[in-house]
């Protein structure tokens, strides 16, 4: 019995792992892992660093490059890896594989554990590439040629694997909770990741304090003085870091037990949904693609399959007496009806939004007028709220499998234009309150920035959706942009919320942002044109 269970578990995990690793996109994720490794072990004269030991970095030997890449892996693969691995249960749902599996004796726990294992294998393969990159960079940087496999790999086991296990488990968990299956899950994970970082100095689930203490001790022992804080995360330093020698972390029993607990918690988190997982019972699966549907990627919506009787329907055979030639003549025009196309695109974007969504949007706008100050918080809230709707620009036809049907329709570029206009209209409507506030306060410069924001948000969404053919990239990137802007990084402020000492927008000018928006839209049209030519 146990052997059978193990066979089923391994069978699910390996089949799923093979399916994912044989896609071209997998090579892109491995390339990203290589890039991450390069960032973690930068050239000696680089002022961009990921691990800063108070103005110092370790000699590039096995202990330092292993620890730096392992910590960076835990930090970034937790975020990016989640979006890479999520969607496996939904894929079984959409392809019908789930229906086949549902007819087997496979238990819910086995299935979920198999998916967890598959997720972990994918992420572990990325971590493996990261470790190989670390070794390659250690040799390439030429500061130490000593082969220290234990010193290089131990930090991955200690810091990276438990984080990847939690990420793998969360990806499974989110797919079993209907509201989290789609774009909302992508947003929630970003918030979870951000919260964990803020609560643990950049290493999810702790451990950085032990590493920092060990490094500090080595720095002091070598008669050096730390010139700043220890930090993890991509930062720019004033001058290249100075070098000290570090033998690596000797983990305490407490640290190891703590990481083991994280690992076990991940396993429990992965199989917990066995309590409610629907096991591909179609009658229990339905809902909106944005708020309750698929993985938030192309093809992420539930397939339409619910049989339904036609009220008042009559026998179809009686209609055979009607002749097609007697129907109203409907000739195709030389130009599509742009106005009605925009209306159609707006309907497609918003038809599945629940009433409470509109009520929240209305509340934010009313509050912006009532509060009476052109504050950033309400504009931010008003323009973060529709992120899942914008993220469908450029992808909604893929999401619902309409690409083949629409492929035979004329006016491909007109459709893209209509989507953009619909996106701009939605953006403007969702933040009309803050605009009114600015105009009432005579803040014409900020109103111009608002207009630029209303152009750039749908343009960015349309471009990213068209290029990547998935809404996930915009969902994550847009939140990163807002996160930076709210932390007053002026270069990321596309809506005029970061103010200088004189109370004027400190970010790029409204003209520059508007120009960038139009360039993005033109790029989306060009990409769509190329996609069409390569059909």
């Amino acid at each position: 019995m146990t052997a059978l269970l193990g066979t089923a578990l391994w069978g699910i995990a390996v089949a799923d792992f093979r399916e994912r690793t044989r896609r071209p996109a997998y090579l892109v994720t491995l390339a990203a892992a290589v890039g991450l490794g390069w960032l973690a072990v930068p050239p000696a004269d680089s002022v961009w660093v990921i691990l800063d030991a108070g103005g110092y970095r370790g000699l590039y030997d096995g202990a330092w490059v292993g620890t730096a890449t392992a910590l960076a892996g835990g930090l970034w693969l937790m975020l990016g890896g989640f979006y890479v691995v999520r969607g496996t249960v939904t894929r079984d749902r959409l392809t019908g594989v789930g229906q086949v599996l549902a007819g087997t004796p496979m238990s819910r726990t086995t299935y979920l554990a198999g998916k967890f294992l598959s997720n972990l294998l994918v992420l572990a393969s990325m971590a493996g590439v990261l470790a190989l990159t670390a070794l390659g960079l250690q040799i390439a940087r030429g500061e130490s040629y000593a082969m220290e496999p234990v010193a290089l790999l131990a930090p991955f086991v200690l810091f990276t694997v438990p984080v990847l296990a939690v990420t793998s488990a969360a990806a499974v968990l989110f797919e079993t909770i209907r509201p989290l299956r789609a774009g909302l899950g992508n947003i929630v994970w970003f918030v979870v990741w951000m919260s964990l970082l803020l609560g643990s100095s950049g290493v999810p689930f702790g451990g950085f304090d032990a590493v920092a203490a060990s490094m500090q001790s080595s720095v002091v022992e070598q008669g050096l003085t730390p010139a700043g804080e220890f930090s993890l995360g991509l930062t720019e330093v004033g001058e290249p870091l100075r070098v000290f020698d570090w033998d690596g972390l000797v983990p305490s029993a407490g640290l190891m037990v703590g990481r083991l607990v994280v690992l076990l918690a991940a396993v429990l988190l992965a199989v917990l949904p066995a309590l409610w997982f629907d096991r591909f019972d179609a009658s229990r699966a339905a809902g909106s693609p944005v708020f309750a549907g698929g993985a938030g990627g192309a093809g992420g919506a539930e397939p339409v399959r619910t049989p339904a009787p036609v009220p008042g329907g009559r026998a179809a055979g009686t209609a055979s007496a009607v002749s097609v030639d007697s129907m109203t003549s409907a000739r195709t025009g030389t130009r599509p009806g742009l106005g009605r196309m925009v209306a159609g695109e707006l309907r497609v974007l918003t038809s599945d939004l629940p009433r409470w969504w509109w009520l929240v949007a209305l509340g934010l706008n009313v509050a912006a007028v009532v509060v009476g100050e052109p504050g950033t918080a309400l504009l931010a809230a008003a323009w973060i709220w529709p992120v899942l709707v914008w993220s469908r620009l450029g992808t909604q036809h893929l999401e619902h499998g309409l690409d083949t049907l629409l492929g035979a329709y004329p006016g491909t570029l007109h459709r893209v234009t209509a989507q953009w206009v619909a996106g701009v209209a939605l953006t403007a409507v969702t933040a009309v309150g803050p605009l009114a506030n600015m105009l009432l306060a005579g803040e014409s410069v900020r109103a111009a920035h608002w207009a630029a924001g209303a152009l750039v948000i749908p343009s960015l969404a349309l471009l990213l959706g068209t290029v990547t053919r998935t809404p996930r990239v915009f969902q994550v990137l847009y939140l990163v942009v807002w996160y930076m802007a709210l932390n007053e990084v002026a270069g990321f402020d596309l809506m005029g919320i970061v103010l200088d000492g004189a109370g004027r927008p400190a970010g790029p000018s409204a003209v520059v942002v508007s120009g960038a928006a139009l360039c993005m839209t033109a790029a989306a049209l060009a990409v769509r044109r190329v996609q069409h030519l390569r059909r």
Partner: protein
Amino acid sequence: MEPVLELVDVAKRYRGGLHAVDAVTLRLGPGLIGLLGPNGAGKSSLMRIAATVTRPSSGQVLFDGADAVRRPDALRRRLGYLPQDFGVYPHLSASEFLSYLAAVKGVGARAARARIGELLEILDLAGAGRRPLGAYSGGMLRRVGIAQALLTDPQVLVVDEPSAGLDPEQRVVLRNLLSDLATDRVVVLSTHIASDVGSVASDIAIMSGGRLRVRGTPEEVLRLAQGQVWEVTVPAETLQILRQRHVISKQVRTPAGMRVRVLAPSAPVADAVPVAPDLEDAYLAVVHGHAATAGVVR
């Protein structure tokens, strides 16, 4: 009569070297052509090429003599296409979905409204026209697909496995519709069900392995299997031997043994009786290489 749609020496090769379509030439004028072939024969790839959804790897697609590969919009404006698999926006009603597609095609609002109402009526969807498509059955969605293909007055109608999911009555409605349309339009009907084609097509093409094997009138295609179809009642053990040597197109268990219909160049067993072939026999004969095809492919 001048052909309206021409596929000239069309080929489609996918990554990995798979030849889905190989050097197919079809010149099509008004009338209904039934494209038959087993699964994987290349029918759907050819349909997508004819509908401008996919570019051929080589060859030409001409619409009224103009290149429809480089400039597809002229054909698209006069095209109705029903793919084998297609999606819908599940939260729109049939009327809203068809209105959206009518706008994409540039049909005027008033004409679109009237046409959509009539199509929903003909396809027995009027009662469900305001319900979200997500609540439709597979057969109802297929009828919505047919409706979108007929949104305009298409000069070329390409329908790929249109009867999948339809009940017998709805199949009759569809056949009558297609037959009506074929009076003065090009209708290309792709299917792997020979009986769907037999009752409406004036022209039949059979594909297998990506190539066009046969094209002709139903009579010409039937003639390919003339003298090669036999019926006989045999015991179970003889049936096994027959299966190994010949194509069995039908078998029915009777008290006297198994009544079978066999494709064979000569009598497969001593008391086999020759019978007139039907379209399914001819199709199987072509696909399995039994047919004498000389002079039939046009």
